[in-house]
């Protein structure tokens, strides 16, 4: 639907876009990710022919924007960054103006305006001047004007920039709804937004495409994902753990197994789990939990889906009489993918890799929050007390209900999920 082929753009000495290429299929919702100044907006402006590329070409549908700009633009709806609008115009008048620009006959225009007013929840403010509307409403007016000619492709440049959380939520819902029957290219530097909305991610840095693929593909390509295991294992049981690690290493799809031993660390969710376990087992009084030896292991796998691998590991642990207390998938977050792709935060990304720092317990919180683009991401990394409390409640409930449960557990579909 949208093909960007080796486009270049220079502004004086600045080579802003250097051979960017990607292609979007019909129905795809893609996120164009990058830091400020990475070349996202310049790329989008070239797609929408607001500016022309110095080299390379952009095709929308069958039409090259150089030779058939008008036909190409009829297939595109464009919401520019910061939603520029004529503030002195009432909403409905503005939409009529946009309809006239597309040479829409009056009857079609009226019908289309009615449709977009409903779809973008603008009916109540249709007679108000745009300048008097809140930022969220202005964003909707921008979207409504982009949708007016019912284009099969939408290009949205940072659609939630500057909105409050409620407006962000509303705009995302609307974009998700619109994406049901359209190709959408969404530019953003908010990673969580792209993670929530897009099935394809194109990462741009320094005017160059650094990564392109689905979020799960990109996460797998970083090599930071896999399965995390942990168990209490006395020093004398090292041989069982090593044997289990060897069996896991031989499993299909496993590319690397790294294991480490340590004492129960304090101040983290893992210590909470250990303490609860010890109290339950009567080994220590509350508040005086003894340190125990912990075996932790990170299994790196080639595939994106670790469900089968986790099941195999659980069965192998049972066979080796290793009571696993934690088996969970750890997928690279988009923050890690982004840092990995752009290299700018590569060191931070490496710090978050469970197998990269053997001296630190696998589940210990990082010394600093790596490339914390969102509070959600930061919260996942440091494991807040809410999660600890939930975990303790679950452990207590499990202890009182069933003492003779099998030792291995299968928990948590995602990294950061409650174990």
């Amino acid at each position, binding site marked *: 639907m949208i093909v960007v082929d080796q486009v270049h753009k220079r502004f004086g000495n600045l080579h802003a876009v250097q051979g960017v290429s990607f292609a979007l299929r019909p129905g795809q919702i893609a996120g164009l990710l990058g830091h400020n100044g990475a070349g996202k907006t310049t790329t989008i402006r070239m797609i*929408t022919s*607001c500016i022309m590329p110095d080299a390379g070409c952009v095709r929308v549908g069958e039409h090259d924007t150089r030779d058939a700009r008008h*036909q190409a633009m009829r297939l595109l709806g*464009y919401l520019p960054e910061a939603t*520029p609008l004529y503030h002195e115009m009432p909403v409905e008048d503005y939409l009529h103006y946009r309809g006239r*620009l597309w040479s829409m006959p009056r009857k079609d225009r009226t019908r289309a305006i009615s449709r977009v007013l409903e779809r973008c929840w603008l009916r109540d403010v249709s007679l108000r001047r745009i300048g008097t509307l809140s930022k969220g409403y202005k964003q909707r007016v921008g979207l409504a004007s982009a949708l007016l000619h*019912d284009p099969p492709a939408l290009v949205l440049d940072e659609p939630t920039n500057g909105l409050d959380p409620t407006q962000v939520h509303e705009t995302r819902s609307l974009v998700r709804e619109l994406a049901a029957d359209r190709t959408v290219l969404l530019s953003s530097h908010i990673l969580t937004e792209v993670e929530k909305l897009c099935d394809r991610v194109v990462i741009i840095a320094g005017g160059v495409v650094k990564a392109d693929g689905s979020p799960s593909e990109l996460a797998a390509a970083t090599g930071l994902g896999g399965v995390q295991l942990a168990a209490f294992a006395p020093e004398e049981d090292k041989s069982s753990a090593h044997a289990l690690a060897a069996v896991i290493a031989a499993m299909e799809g496993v590319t690397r197994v790294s294991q480490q031993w340590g004492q129960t660390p304090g101040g983290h969710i893992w210590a909470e789990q250990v303490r609860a376990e010890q109290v339950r087992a009567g080994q220590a009084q509350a508040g005086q939990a003894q340190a125990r030896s912990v075996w932790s292991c990170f299994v790196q796998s080639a595939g994106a889906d670790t469900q089968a691998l986790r099941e195999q590991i659980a069965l192998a642990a049972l066979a080796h009489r290793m009571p696993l207390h934690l088996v969970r998938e750890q997928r690279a977050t988009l923050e890690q993918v982004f840092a990995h792709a752009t290299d700018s935060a590569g060191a931070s990304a490496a710090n978050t890799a469970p197998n990269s720092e053997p001296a630190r317990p696998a589940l210990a919180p990082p010394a600093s929050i790596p490339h914390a683009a969102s509070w959600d991401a930061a919260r996942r990394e440091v494991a807040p007390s809410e999660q600890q409390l939930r975990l303790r409640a679950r452990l207590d409930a499990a202890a009182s209900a069933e003492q003779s449960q099998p030792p291995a557990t299968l928990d948590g579909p995602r990294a950061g999920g409650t174990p």
Partner: protein
Amino acid sequence: MTTSTSPGLNPLAGFPAIVRRELWSYFRQPAGWIIIALCTLLMGVVFAIGVLLPNQPATMRTLFDASGWLLLPLAPAITMRLFADEYRSGTIEPLLASPVGTPALVLGKFAGSVLFLLCMLLPTLVFPATLALFASPALDAGPIITGYLAVVLLGMLYLSIGLLASSCTSNATLAFMLTLFALLGWLLLPAAARLGEWARVITFRASLGPRVADFAKGVVDLGHVVFFLACITSVLACAIAVVRLRRWK
């Protein structure tokens, strides 16, 4: 998915929409009304002082002769926003991303501003009406009609220069100043005649004052009309080139 529009490749597609928006935008903002008031005030003052004189011929030549100077602050005020504001606020982006050609965009904005110029001149019709009321014998309408034709042609030329200045910058104040100085330079061109014979010839051919004066006398010289239209067309062609260039820059 359908596009409910005709797939035509009319180079002036979107022209009426732009004309309409530009015209109404003047009336939606205080600036438009202030410009109209200022025009009426300035022309009213000249009319009261230089035209409405007892025992003098009932003619509006003084007013039309002064129109070059009267329009000097008004034309830049009308045109300064046309492109500069669009570039500054970013509203040019949805325009450029719509199936509207650059000629349609530039000519649409120009036509919108010319229509506003006509609206601005409308209240000044009260001056010839007043003159007709007191004139004896009856007022000769011919020179007044040709005089207004001169004001419109001169105004169109000023507006085209203002449009070009506005297309060159994203700063409306700068566009105003550029237009003002360009027009001032043109009006003061006769002063350069002292530089030599060649300068005298050039300034004589390029001067605006004598041409307007001819119209005000009731003489419609086709050469003058062609001169104005050629200048306007050339300046608009430059504006189209500038807007195109900014798309490629």
